């Protein structure tokens, strides 16, 4: 088996309830370090809910109850009471479905995270970090002359790459992406996918996607969810060629979902 140290995050016995409604039913899923894992499944299958458990974004929803064990780097229980949620989110970043840059300048968007966490000690260091983050997100060349322009003036794809730059500016270990391309056109989507392929060198990426072709293009591991259950997980190549389960096969061949 694979060495334990190679997992960035391990989850076990995960149950999520919205009020009385069960959204996730006994899921156990591990995420290998510096790889891309995609979560696929039909709408309402719980894949986004599961993703949001990983940086505790579900805490915002009052009726949402999360149970189970979430262990990061084999040591840190991310639901531990004495772990400040802010520190956790510094380690586990997130990119949302709809690009949500702050209606401030491009520079401010990227600089915000480092500022609140006190990552940099000087203005020039911050400038460099902003530059580097934009560079890594493949956006720097497009915006270098207008860093002070308001970010909402960028195109959808640029906004989403800005959100990725914002997420990596605080150097997280894991990046969660919740259908990051669903609001984008194919060209912008292709750019984001290229970016994901580059980013996995340094980060563990967990991506929720509706597009099976996207999952097969970007990820090394795929997990298929249905009605709150984890039906099957495994190497992407295997899931998309000879899945073990009938349900998985039906889904990837487009027979339902």
């Amino acid at each position, binding site marked *: 088996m694979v060495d334990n140290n190679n997992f960035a995050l391990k989850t076990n016995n995960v149950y999520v309830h919205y009020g009385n409604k069960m959204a996730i039913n006994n899921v156990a899923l591990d995420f290998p370090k510096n790889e891309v894992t995609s979560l696929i499944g039909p709408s309402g299958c719980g894949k986004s809910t599961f993703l949001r458990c990983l*940086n505790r*974004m579900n805490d*915002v929803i*009052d009726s949402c109850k999360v149970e189970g064990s979430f262990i990061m780097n084999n040591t840190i229980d991310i639901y531990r009471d004495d772990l400040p*949620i*802010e*520190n*956790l*989110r*510094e380690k586990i*970043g*997130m990119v*949302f479905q*709809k690009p*949500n*840059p*702050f*209606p401030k300048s491009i520079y401010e968007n990227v600089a*915000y*995270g480092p500022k*609140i*966490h006190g990552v940099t000690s000087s203005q020039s260091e911050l400038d460099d970090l902003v530059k580097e983050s934009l560079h890594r997100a493949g956006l720097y060349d497009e915006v270098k002359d207008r860093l002070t322009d308001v970010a*909402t*003036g960028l195109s959808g794809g640029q906004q989403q790459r800005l*959100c990725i730059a*914002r*997420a990596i500016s*605080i150097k997280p270990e894991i990046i969660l992406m919740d259908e990051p391309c669903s609001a984008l056109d194919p060209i912008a989507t292709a750019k984001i996918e290229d970016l994901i392929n580059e980013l996995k060198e340094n980060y563990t990426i967990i991506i929720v996607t509706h597009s099976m072709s996207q999952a097969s293009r970007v990820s090394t591991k795929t997990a298929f969810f249905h009605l709150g259950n984890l039906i099957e997980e495994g190497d992407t190549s295997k899931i998309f060629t000879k899945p073990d389960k009938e349900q998985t096969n039906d889904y990837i061949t487009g027979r339902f979902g």
Partner: protein
Amino acid sequence: MSNIKKRLKAERRFKFYGQLGVFLSLLFVTLLMLKIFTTGSGAFFRTTIEADVFFDPKFMQVDKNSSDKEISRSSFEALADSVVNNNFKDLNEGQFIKVREMFTRRFDYQLRDYFLDNKDDYKKTVKLKITASSDLDQIVKGNYPRNVPEEQRKINDYQLSILDELNKQERIGSTFNFWFFTNGDSRDPETAGIWGAIMGSFYALMVCLAFAFPIGLFASVYLEEYTKPGKITDLIEVNINNLAAVPSIVFGLLGLGMLIGVFNMPFQVPLVGGLTLGFMTLPTIIIACRSSLRAVPPSIRHGALALGATKTQTTFHHVVPLALPGTLTGTIIGMAQALGETAPLLMVGMVAFVMEIPGGPLDPATGLPSQIYLWSESAERGFIEKTSAGIMLLLLFLILMNLTAVLIRRKVEVKW
């Protein structure tokens, strides 16, 4: 099929009712405005009588070398009387009193103010336009009928004959009434001004803003961003909405009972008036702030939270700045409402006769609406046009404030 005619007829009938309603309401507004403007425009001009003024040492306690302070303290009453005697020859005592009454009672002040600026005219004769008394002013403006029996007129036949004589000599004139904009209240309509009331309202509104805006903003931020929905939140919400509908006189009573009664704050001052208006405006501000906070998309909050910002950082770095235009708009509209409120001012005593211009929120003052109320209650004919002119100014301020609110809303609209 058969009832289509009937249905179309009903359609036309209801359309007609609607148009009639719009027409009538526009008609009433137009009539109101017309009435206010025709009545009030007179207040911006005052009638003057040209007179030769000889700065006669015999009647003056000061000369051209006197200091401003000495001049300000000295009386010009005797000089004013001498001007009347010089310009209207051979008056007996009764006639003198009647002629003197045609000039403003502040005749001496006007002479003093002139002398302060023109000390070199000492022992010289100059032609000055002396303000007429309000009664004469009203006759000249045609607001008083002349053709009624003498005992029903404030200006008697003798004074009318003098007026006609002055008219013939072209010594009756009209000048722009700056006093209306610079003076405080006065017993004499010709010298009464609205500046004191404007300053009173200004200080009261500043106190109201300083009190209600921070409290309203923080209350709504807390209610909107921090509390969990539940019975208590619902109860608070319902109560705030109810408070917004409470008649203003009730808040006036609160101000009277609590601020003046319990906390022993002074009567008549803008501080208390402003706090009372603040109680009244608070629910309006909270409601406006909450709705603009709610209009900030959750994705902005999520973006900040996902970066590891605390709730307070998310709120004050992102949500509140984005909601600010909306909160400012709501606040200005609340202020405009407060500016027009009369009842709370009446309850806390900001409706007294105050001649001095208030210099701060602790000086006795009236407010714009209460000044209008005071003038409307006055018996003097000259105050009628002052009342309308006051209303015009009040409306002007209200329009300006609401316009500012609209402009802020248009200008600072955020694109998502």
